[in-house]
Protein backbone atom coordinates (compact mmCIF):
# COMPACT_ATOMS: atom_id res chain seq x y z
CA UNK A 1 0.00 0.00 0.00
CA UNK A 2 1.32 3.45 -0.85
CA UNK A 3 1.49 6.44 1.46
CA UNK A 4 -1.20 8.17 -0.61
CA UNK A 5 -3.54 5.17 -0.41
CA UNK A 6 -3.03 4.90 3.35
CA UNK A 7 -3.61 8.63 3.79
CA UNK A 8 -6.89 8.42 1.85
CA UNK A 9 -8.08 5.35 3.75
CA UNK A 10 -7.35 6.98 7.12
CA UNK A 11 -8.63 10.40 5.99
CA UNK A 12 -5.35 12.01 7.00
CA UNK A 13 -4.77 15.69 6.50
CA UNK A 14 -1.59 16.23 4.45
CA UNK A 15 1.02 18.56 5.92
CA UNK A 16 3.75 17.60 3.45
CA UNK A 17 3.31 15.04 0.67
CA UNK A 18 6.92 14.69 -0.38
CA UNK A 19 6.81 11.15 -1.76
CA UNK A 20 3.18 9.93 -1.83
CA UNK A 21 3.93 6.89 -3.99
CA UNK A 22 6.27 5.40 -1.40
CA UNK A 23 5.35 1.92 -0.16
CA UNK A 24 4.26 1.49 3.48
CA UNK A 25 5.47 -1.82 4.88
CA UNK A 26 4.80 -1.54 8.60
CA UNK A 27 3.85 0.67 11.51
CA UNK A 28 5.31 2.04 14.72
CA UNK A 29 4.05 4.29 17.45
CA UNK A 30 6.02 6.17 20.10
CA UNK A 31 7.01 9.61 21.32
CA UNK A 32 10.38 9.03 22.97
CA UNK A 33 12.61 9.84 20.05
CA UNK A 34 15.57 7.70 21.13
CA UNK A 35 13.25 4.77 21.54
CA UNK A 36 11.70 5.31 18.11
CA UNK A 37 15.15 5.80 16.60
CA UNK A 38 16.31 2.41 17.79
CA UNK A 39 13.19 0.46 16.94
CA UNK A 40 11.17 1.90 14.05
CA UNK A 41 11.88 0.19 10.74
CA UNK A 42 12.32 1.53 7.23
CA UNK A 43 8.94 1.80 5.50
CA UNK A 44 6.97 2.23 8.73
CA UNK A 45 4.01 4.54 9.24
CA UNK A 46 5.17 6.31 12.43
CA UNK A 47 2.34 7.56 14.63
CA UNK A 48 3.30 10.13 17.26
CA UNK A 49 2.09 13.13 19.22
CA UNK A 50 5.56 14.73 19.12
CA UNK A 51 5.48 17.70 16.79
CA UNK A 52 8.93 19.29 16.95
CA UNK A 53 11.52 19.47 14.20
CA UNK A 54 13.55 16.60 15.67
CA UNK A 55 10.77 14.26 14.54
CA UNK A 56 11.81 14.96 10.96
CA UNK A 57 15.44 14.03 11.72
CA UNK A 58 14.33 10.75 13.30
CA UNK A 59 11.97 10.00 10.38
CA UNK A 60 14.85 10.66 7.97
CA UNK A 61 17.29 8.44 9.84
CA UNK A 62 14.84 5.55 10.32
CA UNK A 63 13.55 5.84 6.73
CA UNK A 64 9.94 5.99 7.93
CA UNK A 65 7.52 5.98 4.99
CA UNK A 66 5.38 8.63 6.65
CA UNK A 67 4.78 10.39 9.96
CA UNK A 68 1.25 10.77 11.30
CA UNK A 69 0.69 13.41 13.99
CA UNK A 70 -2.15 11.95 16.05
CA UNK A 71 -4.64 13.45 18.52
CA UNK A 72 -5.15 16.61 16.46
CA UNK A 73 -1.59 17.74 17.15
CA UNK A 74 -0.38 20.57 14.92
CA UNK A 75 3.18 20.70 13.59
CA UNK A 76 5.49 23.20 15.30
CA UNK A 77 6.50 26.23 13.24
CA UNK A 78 9.02 25.23 10.58
CA UNK A 79 8.22 21.50 10.75
CA UNK A 80 6.31 21.42 7.44
CA UNK A 81 9.11 23.28 5.65
CA UNK A 82 11.71 20.93 7.11
CA UNK A 83 9.67 17.89 6.03
CA UNK A 84 9.54 19.32 2.51
CA UNK A 85 13.29 19.92 2.51
CA UNK A 86 14.08 16.42 3.76
CA UNK A 87 11.48 14.67 1.61
CA UNK A 88 9.41 13.35 4.52
CA UNK A 89 5.73 12.50 4.14
CA UNK A 90 3.95 14.24 7.03
CA UNK A 91 0.25 14.02 7.86
CA UNK A 92 -2.02 14.76 10.79
CA UNK A 93 -5.20 13.28 12.16
CA UNK A 94 -7.77 14.15 14.84
CA UNK A 95 -7.81 10.50 15.92
CA UNK A 96 -5.91 9.08 18.88
CA UNK A 97 -2.82 6.93 18.35
CA UNK A 98 -4.54 3.67 19.34
CA UNK A 99 -7.35 3.67 16.75
CA UNK A 100 -4.88 4.89 14.13
CA UNK A 101 -2.57 1.97 14.91
CA UNK A 102 -5.47 -0.47 14.72
CA UNK A 103 -6.51 0.89 11.34
CA UNK A 104 -2.97 0.85 9.94
CA UNK A 105 -2.55 -2.74 11.12
CA UNK A 106 -5.84 -3.74 9.49
CA UNK A 107 -4.94 -2.08 6.20
CA UNK A 108 -1.43 -3.48 5.79
Amino acid at each position, binding site marked *: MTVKELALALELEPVCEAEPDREVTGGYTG*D*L*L*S*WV*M*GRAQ*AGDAWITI*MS*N*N*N*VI*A*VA*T*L*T*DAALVILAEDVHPDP*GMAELAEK*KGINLYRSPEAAFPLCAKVAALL
Partner: protein
Amino acid sequence: MAALHFHFDIDGEDFSSAGEASVEMKKKLRQLGFPSDVIRRCSIAMYEGEINMVIHANGGNADVDVYPDKIVIVLEDHGPGIPNVELAMQEGYSTATEQIHNMGFGAGMGLPNMKRYTESLEIETQVGVGTKLTMVVAV
Protein backbone atom coordinates in the same frame (compact mmCIF):
# COMPACT_ATOMS: atom_id res chain seq x y z
CA MET B 1 44.52 3.76 6.07
CA ALA B 2 41.02 5.16 5.85
CA ALA B 3 39.40 5.01 2.46
CA LEU B 4 37.41 8.13 3.23
CA HIS B 5 37.18 10.67 6.01
CA PHE B 6 34.25 12.93 6.83
CA HIS B 7 34.28 15.74 9.38
CA PHE B 8 31.20 17.42 10.83
CA ASP B 9 30.90 20.38 13.18
CA ILE B 10 27.95 19.91 15.51
CA ASP B 11 26.22 23.14 16.39
CA GLY B 12 25.22 23.24 20.04
CA GLU B 13 23.10 26.34 19.75
CA ASP B 14 20.17 25.06 17.72
CA PHE B 15 18.48 22.04 19.24
CA SER B 16 15.84 21.87 16.51
CA SER B 17 18.47 21.23 13.83
CA ALA B 18 20.23 18.49 15.83
CA GLY B 19 20.74 15.42 13.68
CA GLU B 20 21.98 17.26 10.60
CA ALA B 21 25.42 15.62 10.75
CA SER B 22 23.87 12.14 11.12
CA VAL B 23 21.56 12.74 8.17
CA GLU B 24 24.52 13.93 6.10
CA MET B 25 26.61 10.89 7.08
CA LYS B 26 23.73 8.59 6.24
CA LYS B 27 23.46 10.15 2.79
CA LYS B 28 27.18 9.65 2.16
CA LEU B 29 27.13 6.00 3.32
CA ARG B 30 24.16 5.35 1.08
CA GLN B 31 25.96 6.91 -1.89
CA LEU B 32 28.92 4.64 -1.12
CA GLY B 33 26.59 1.63 -1.35
CA PHE B 34 26.83 0.23 2.19
CA PRO B 35 24.14 -2.28 3.26
CA SER B 36 21.06 -0.68 4.81
CA ASP B 37 21.62 -2.45 8.15
CA VAL B 38 25.12 -0.95 8.45
CA ILE B 39 23.80 2.50 7.54
CA ARG B 40 21.01 2.14 10.09
CA ARG B 41 23.37 1.19 12.92
CA CYS B 42 25.75 4.05 12.08
CA SER B 43 22.84 6.49 11.89
CA ILE B 44 21.40 5.48 15.28
CA ALA B 45 24.79 5.55 17.02
CA MET B 46 25.81 8.89 15.58
CA TYR B 47 22.42 10.51 16.12
CA GLU B 48 22.42 9.57 19.79
CA GLY B 49 25.91 11.01 20.16
CA GLU B 50 24.95 14.15 18.31
CA ILE B 51 21.89 14.70 20.48
CA ASN B 52 23.98 14.12 23.63
CA MET B 53 26.52 16.70 22.51
CA VAL B 54 23.79 19.26 21.84
CA ILE B 55 21.96 18.56 25.13
CA HIS B 56 24.96 18.37 27.42
CA ALA B 57 28.05 19.86 25.80
CA ASN B 58 27.02 22.79 23.60
CA GLY B 59 28.04 20.89 20.46
CA GLY B 60 31.29 19.34 19.32
CA ASN B 61 32.90 17.50 16.42
CA ALA B 62 32.24 14.26 14.61
CA ASP B 63 34.83 12.45 12.52
CA VAL B 64 33.84 9.44 10.48
CA ASP B 65 36.44 7.14 8.92
CA VAL B 66 35.08 4.78 6.32
CA TYR B 67 37.00 1.55 5.69
CA PRO B 68 35.86 -1.32 3.46
CA ASP B 69 35.19 -3.54 6.49
CA LYS B 70 34.24 -1.04 9.21
CA ILE B 71 33.09 2.49 9.95
CA VAL B 72 34.71 4.34 12.83
CA ILE B 73 32.80 7.26 14.35
CA VAL B 74 34.64 9.57 16.74
CA LEU B 75 32.61 12.18 18.63
CA GLU B 76 34.46 14.76 20.71
CA ASP B 77 33.18 17.61 22.85
CA HIS B 78 34.46 20.06 25.43
CA GLY B 79 31.42 19.72 27.67
CA PRO B 80 31.13 18.89 31.37
CA GLY B 81 32.29 15.27 31.03
CA ILE B 82 30.49 12.21 32.47
CA PRO B 83 31.07 11.86 36.25
CA ASN B 84 29.87 8.24 36.44
CA VAL B 85 30.11 6.30 33.17
CA GLU B 86 28.70 3.10 34.65
CA LEU B 87 25.56 4.96 35.73
CA ALA B 88 25.27 6.78 32.39
CA MET B 89 25.37 3.42 30.60
CA GLN B 90 22.25 2.21 32.43
CA GLU B 91 19.07 2.34 30.37
CA GLY B 92 16.71 4.96 31.74
CA TYR B 93 19.35 7.03 33.53
CA SER B 94 19.35 10.62 32.35
CA THR B 95 20.46 14.03 33.59
CA ALA B 96 18.52 15.90 30.87
CA THR B 97 16.22 18.75 31.90
CA GLU B 98 12.43 18.78 31.90
CA GLN B 99 12.48 20.89 28.74
CA ILE B 100 14.54 18.23 26.94
CA HIS B 101 12.14 15.52 28.16
CA ASN B 102 9.22 17.48 26.76
CA MET B 103 10.88 17.41 23.35
CA GLY B 104 11.00 13.61 23.38
CA PHE B 105 14.59 13.14 24.54
CA GLY B 106 16.29 12.31 27.81
CA ALA B 107 14.89 8.79 27.99
CA GLY B 108 18.27 7.53 29.12
CA MET B 109 18.69 5.52 25.93
CA GLY B 110 21.54 7.46 24.33
CA LEU B 111 24.66 5.62 25.45
CA PRO B 112 22.85 2.23 25.71
CA ASN B 113 21.66 2.63 22.09
CA MET B 114 25.20 3.52 21.00
CA LYS B 115 26.51 0.36 22.66
CA ARG B 116 23.70 -1.81 21.32
CA TYR B 117 24.11 -0.80 17.69
CA THR B 118 27.90 -0.80 17.44
CA GLU B 119 30.60 -3.47 17.73
CA SER B 120 32.53 -1.36 20.21
CA LEU B 121 32.05 1.84 22.18
CA GLU B 122 35.00 3.43 23.94
CA ILE B 123 34.38 6.35 26.28
CA GLU B 124 37.14 8.72 27.35
CA THR B 125 35.80 11.40 29.64
CA GLN B 126 37.08 13.87 32.19
CA VAL B 127 34.84 16.05 34.34
CA GLY B 128 35.20 19.69 33.36
CA VAL B 129 37.26 18.86 30.27
CA GLY B 130 35.10 16.91 27.85
CA THR B 131 34.20 13.55 26.37
CA LYS B 132 35.47 11.52 23.44
CA LEU B 133 33.49 8.56 22.14
CA THR B 134 34.91 6.10 19.62
CA MET B 135 32.45 3.73 18.02
CA VAL B 136 33.11 0.99 15.50
CA VAL B 137 30.45 -0.48 13.25
CA ALA B 138 31.52 -3.58 11.33
CA VAL B 139 30.41 -3.88 7.71
